[in-house]
């Protein structure tokens, strides 16, 4: 059985809508900017990949606005775009044949911050009737399923930045178990003051102040990441069913997926990223030489960049494959990061072009990777490997390939 992607909806700091996102990704349009919305002067980090031109009222019915966090609004908007792109409405397939599997790492955090504030400053009777479901990690799956009448299997997975690829992997598993279509992907946002402060805990966020020299994955100047918001929603579908219903387009196949977890810190064993990549390749039935581009996790911290470079060299050999990190232009979108990279990978296959890695310029020779920097690289792309890591040790890998009628 083959699972294909037939629809993409992206909502990211550098582009709302799939083609806007892709154009921004290829032209190097930066979505990283000074965080607005509250006074950040007391914070050591003030740059974020922030969506600034989104007006919820133009995208969603007004009844959904009081009950949704901004992250859920992005998710609902991206899902509607993805389903429209796929030419799917609620009557396209029989009941129970369409499901929803998304990832979420932060929940409806800005919304819940408001409700915490109301509870503690005013009293419990001021807490919103929507708080019980606007906050939890399943909110996007639930709201997307309701809006589009998706009654098949549904789930919400959490694995920090790796979770978005896990959702797509589980969507494929769900298709293979018999559900014809699964809406998948992930979206996150937490740019309220409390959410922002919380993202800084652990010290991985850059304190840089120049948006063009802030998130520099694999650069010798790398000194942390920039948090982002948004993500992408994809429509995963059984290839035969997609053909049968006359899907307007097939972006590519989800050919392989794997996830691993790093050894407990201190054991000295090798991190799990290389194994995730190898297992995803094996799952796809491909050799490293078959891969035309790797969309890297691109942590933007020297230690983690080195670990990823080591894994890439181990799998592909020194400078063995073009590697790119367009997420440098959006910041790390947590559950949204992997699905947005999958969108880029599928569009690279469509257009035969590999986007560049933001503002990264100087990659240490010791990394031994062929990072696409500066300008996009034009070349045919038939297969791409997308990697994502989540804090604490999550590693996930997805292989997407050009769709061929078997």
């Amino acid at each position, binding site marked *: 059985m083959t699972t294909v992607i037939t629809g993409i909806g992206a909502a990211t700091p550098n582009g709302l809508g799939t083609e806007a996102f892709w154009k921004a990704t290829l032209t190097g349009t930066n979505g990283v900017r000074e965080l607005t919305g509250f006074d950040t002067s007391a914070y050591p980090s003030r740059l974020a990949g922030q969506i600034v031109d989104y007006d919820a009222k133009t995208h969603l019915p007004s009844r959904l606005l009081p009950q949704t966090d901004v992250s859920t609004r992005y998710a609902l908007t991206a899902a509607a775009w993805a389903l429209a792109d796929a030419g799917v409405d609620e009557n396209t397939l029989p009941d129970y044949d369409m499901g929803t599997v998304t990832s979420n790492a932060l929940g409806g955090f800005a919304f819940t911050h408001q409700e915490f504030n109301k509870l503690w400053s005013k009293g419990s009777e001021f807490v919103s009737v929507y708080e019980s479901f606007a906050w939890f990690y399943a909110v996007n799956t639930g709201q997307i399923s309701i809006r589009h009448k998706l009654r098949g299997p549904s789930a919400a997975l959490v694995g920090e930045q790796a979770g978005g690829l896990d959702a797509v992997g589980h969507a494929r598993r769900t298709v293979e*178990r018999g559900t014809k279509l699964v809406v998948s992907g992930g979206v996150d946002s937490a740019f309220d003051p409390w959410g922002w402060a919380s993202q800084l805990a652990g010290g991985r966020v850059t304190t840089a102040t120049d948006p063009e020299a802030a998130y520099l994955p694999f650069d010798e100047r790398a000194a942390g990441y920039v948090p982002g918001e948004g993500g992408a929603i994809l429509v995963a579908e059984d290839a035969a069913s997609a053909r049968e219903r006359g899907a307007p387009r097939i972006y590519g196949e989800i050919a392989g997926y794997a996830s691993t977890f790093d*050894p407990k810190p201190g054991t000295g064993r090798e991190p799990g990223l290389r194994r995730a990549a190898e297992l995803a390749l094996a799952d796809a039935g491909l050799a490293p030489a078959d891969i035309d581009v790797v969309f890297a996790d691109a942590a933007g911290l020297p230690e983690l960049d080195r670990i990823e470079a080591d894994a890439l060299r181990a799998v592909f050999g020194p400078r063995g494959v073009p590697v790119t990190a367009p997420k440098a232009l959006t910041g790390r979108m947590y559950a949204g990061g992997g699905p947005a990279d999958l969108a880029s990978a599928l569009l690279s296959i469509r257009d035969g072009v590999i986007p560049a890695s933001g503002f990264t310029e100087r990659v240490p020779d010791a990394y031994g990777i062929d990072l696409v920097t500066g300008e996009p690289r034009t070349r045919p792309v038939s297969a791409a490997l997308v990697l994502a890591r989540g804090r604490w040790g999550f590693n996930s890998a997805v292989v997407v390939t050009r769709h061929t009628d078997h």
Partner: protein
Amino acid sequence: MTRRVVITGVGVRAPGGNGTKAFWDLLSAGRTATRSISFFDASPFRSRIAGEVDFDAAAEGFGPREIRRMDRATQFAVACTREAVADSGLDLSALDPHRIGVSLGSAVASATSLENEYLVMSDAGKQWEVDPGYLSPHMFDYLSPGVMPAEVAWEVGAEGPVTMVSDGCTSGLDSVGYAVQLIREGTVDTVVAGAADTPISPIVVACFDAIKATTTRNDDPAHASRPFDGTRNGFVLAEGAAMFVLEEYEAAKKRGAHIYAEVGGYATRCNAHHMTGLRKDGREMAEAIRVSLDEARLDGTKIDYINAHGSGTKQNDRHETAAFKRSLGQHAYDVPVSSIKSMVGHSLGAIGSVEIAASLLAIEHNVVPPTANLHTPDPECDLDYVPLTAREQRVDTVLTVGSGFGGFQSAMILHRPEVAAA
């Protein structure tokens, strides 16, 4: 040849019952463990009852650093993991770590720690723009709960797939269902799976107050959780956790493991109807039951016991009663159905796993746990809900179901391995 999946180890932390034995003693005696909230001053709240767990982290073996680092729900998950692994007799250190996975369910994850940190950073809610000077180094762990399955993975040395399944109140069923799929497809051979939630904090109490989902029977906390009773008026919030060791059947048999049950079938459907509301006809839950039976290759009449979601809200009790009738026909009237939430309350994302534990112990002991506090049946709920007293009977096959915010409807078939072999 489809790989079969069995459960060989169980660990439970539940109100009134820490550890599998105490938990089963409570259930089989029909005792209740719901009480007035003691964790904080609940007097401003509409519902002031909860199923609290008497959990002593130091006595559980957690050191001071672990206690500070781990949210209470994470501590529950790790404590249950230790119990489940010991119970399984499996030497995890002798296995290939790459072939071990973790699947942990939770609905609200680190809610308790989030609220504690919020109070510090906002000066008890006085400041909207929190003070980053009071930021805890562990705050990211509470913001994004991937750390919960990570802690379990570190505990057992797992390096295969590790994930959190957060499907609201079906999380604890779906996390085990996810684990079953990982073993069946051959990705791993062993998964430590289960769920934990510790939501007894003001913000979560306020969430359910706001929608009047929880009971106001504040003057009678021990008898406040009344699923299927005509006098019920909402669920009782609780905390809890259960973790399991799941193994590929042939491997478990080969090592002579004690097998609680095989997970014969699992399915989930979504009602796509309302974030908190249920339709009366129970059709999506019925569909999940039908598909899980198909997967287990069992006829509905083989079900000896239904472990119900039975939350004690009117809409739930009627919804699932309809679902049982719709999926099982006449057998719905013949099979005993009970809700352990009557005794331990509703621990949100954890309860699905706590109810799997109860189902496994029902099979183990050939005893159906009762629905406590059921004195005046709701006339619209006309099945055999096993009121008040446990029932001794042969239990080979159990259906356990869950229903949750977001529209999730899940069903799982647990049975003795011989049932499938026969």
